[in-house]
């Protein structure tokens, strides 16, 4: 009997379920999939952003690929990604482990820790710009020469500031992920290790770190793919400068397209950005064997 009645509701479900997915699909196709295809198409055209669009073959690609600005932007993007990963990961693991503890004062500290998560990149960048001002900022006010340098005016320093502010903004998020990861480690592992006489440090490297493997992969994926989209923070903080010291790919795309009105070459940069993102996501998935993280997570 059941065999006879089953097919009919299933057929009914077939008729309605795809319609439930339709609204999300329509918006996503219109404003994400079509633009994704469009960016490839536009990279073979000439457009100033206002007038007519003219096909121009490989002109944009030729212009972009022969421009020394491209390897430079790729290198800066890679540096921001690598250095901010290397700064954020150990600190986030440490803070996450610390926050997973039970002392009450940790919970109090936690209230302050996570405030940066609420702030927009624009607000953070503007506050830091004022704070780091060599004449009117915090260092100048305290009359400490070491702190009143031209932080955003020198290439090396500006790069360091970008990494620092990125870490200031995102370490809370990642330590939150690690806190959740640490809390899921079975207590019995530590008790047993203690009975075995393993010290605090051996417990950390023997239990905590190996148990956090998937958390580390998730967090790293988010950091690495997310770093491709540090647009607002860097744009407001340094506008890519001084010179091109902090001109990452996303910024290069914006400046070529919306400031220099060269939408063709800007689209070519965007295509490169998409390819880099896809390559990284595939690489990390191969390493971790888990879902690749979201790219637009860390600020859109």
């Amino acid at each position, binding site marked *: 009997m059941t065999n006879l009645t089953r097919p009919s509701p299933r057929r009914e479900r*077939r008729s309605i379920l795809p319609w439930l997915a339709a609204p999300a699909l329509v918006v996503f196709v*219109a404003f994400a999939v079509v633009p994704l295809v469009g960016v490839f198409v536009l990279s073979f055209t000439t457009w100033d952003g206002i007038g007519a669009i003219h096909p121009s073959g490989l002109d944009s690609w030729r212009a972009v690929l022969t421009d020394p600005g491209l390897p430079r932007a790729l290198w800066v993007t890679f540096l921001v990604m690598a250095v901010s990963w290397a700064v954020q990961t150990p600190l986030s693991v440490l*803070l996450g482990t610390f926050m997973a503890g039970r002392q009450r004062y940790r919970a109090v500290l936690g209230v302050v820790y996570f405030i940066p998560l609420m702030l927009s990149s624009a607000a953070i960048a503007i506050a830091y710009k004022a704070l780091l001002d060599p004449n009117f*900022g915090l260092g100048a*006010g305290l009359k400490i020469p070491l702190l009143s340098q031209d932080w955003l005016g020198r290439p090396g320093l500006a790069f360091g500031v970008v990494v620092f502010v990125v870490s200031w903004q995102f370490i809370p998020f990642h330590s939150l992920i690690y806190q959740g990861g640490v809390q*899921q480690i079975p207590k019995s592992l530590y008790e047993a290790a203690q009975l075995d006489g393993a010290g605090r440090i051996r417990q950390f490297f023997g239990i905590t770190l190996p148990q956090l493997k998937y958390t580390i992969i998730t967090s790293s994926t988010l950091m690495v793919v997310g770093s491709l989209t540090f647009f607002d923070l860097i744009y407001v903080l340094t506008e890519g400068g001084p010179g091109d010291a902090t001109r990452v790919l996303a910024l290069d795309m914006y400046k070529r397209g919306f400031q220099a009105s060269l939408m063709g070459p800007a689209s070519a940069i965007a295509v490169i950005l998409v390819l880099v993102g896809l390559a990284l996501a595939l690489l990390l998935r191969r390493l971790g064997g888990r879902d690749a993280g979201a790219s637009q997570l860390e600020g859109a």
Partner: protein
Amino acid sequence: MTTTPDVTTTPAKARHPLKTTPRARQRLPRRRNWAGGLAGWIWLVIVAVPLYWTLITSLKAQSRYYASNPLVPSADPTLDNYRLVIESDFVRYFVNSLVVTAGAVVPAVVFSFMAAYAIVRGRRIRGLRAINGLFLMGLAIPLQATVIPVYLIIIRLHLYDSLLALILPSIAFAVPLSVLVLANFVRDVPKELFDSMRVDGASEWTTLWRLAAPLTRPAILTVTIFNALTIWNGFLLPLILTQSPDRRTLPLALWTFQGQYGVNVPAVLAAVVLTTLPLLVLYAFGRRQLLSGLTAGFSR
């Protein structure tokens, strides 16, 4: 994993520490995570100082600002800076941000929930599997790379410089992660409950809203919070898709305000505090919910 406990050996090894119980008991609570504790306090200073400086400086009169110690609060705090910010049309920008955030988050979450339901319930339907694949691809691609075609589409739809221009792409950019998180939770609803709804003759539409929605309410809240934060703090879309001052959202208004009043550091910081205030109020009341909302998709 060398310290993974082997249950069979623990009794033998346990005998040794048991003999020294008094010492062991003394040692256990003292075995603090000193590295974590140190990092915790240092990080507290790193997070708190810029926040504290921003707040107290925003309450200083501009004339006094340059002469005073930057870390000492003003003896006679003033709200003049805040008055200047509010008189610069920030109420309008606040309303704009509210309209864009609500206008994008509600459809984004509703559409994503319907799609997540369809994807989980219609696993066997090839078309829905393809749609799911499409959304997952959206996670791996930095969607900001598509802003140039988005800009073109918005112009062609005659939506440039309107709030709707910000809402539509924001919905699309929110879909992939929202569907992923919501589908994870719909999948956890016991199959028996769906079956009993079907036996009662409920349609998929009824099952969606009467069964799946109440059971996944925490996830829906989570996704709502995450998207609201992202869209409220968004900078790139308002930057490229609007032009007139009265279409600005808060982050963009903050940035232009800083461009206008750059030298007036206390006023700029008052604007930073004011644009952040709504989120800080939310944070004060629903911190736990907000924080779990931020990481829910990743710590599972």
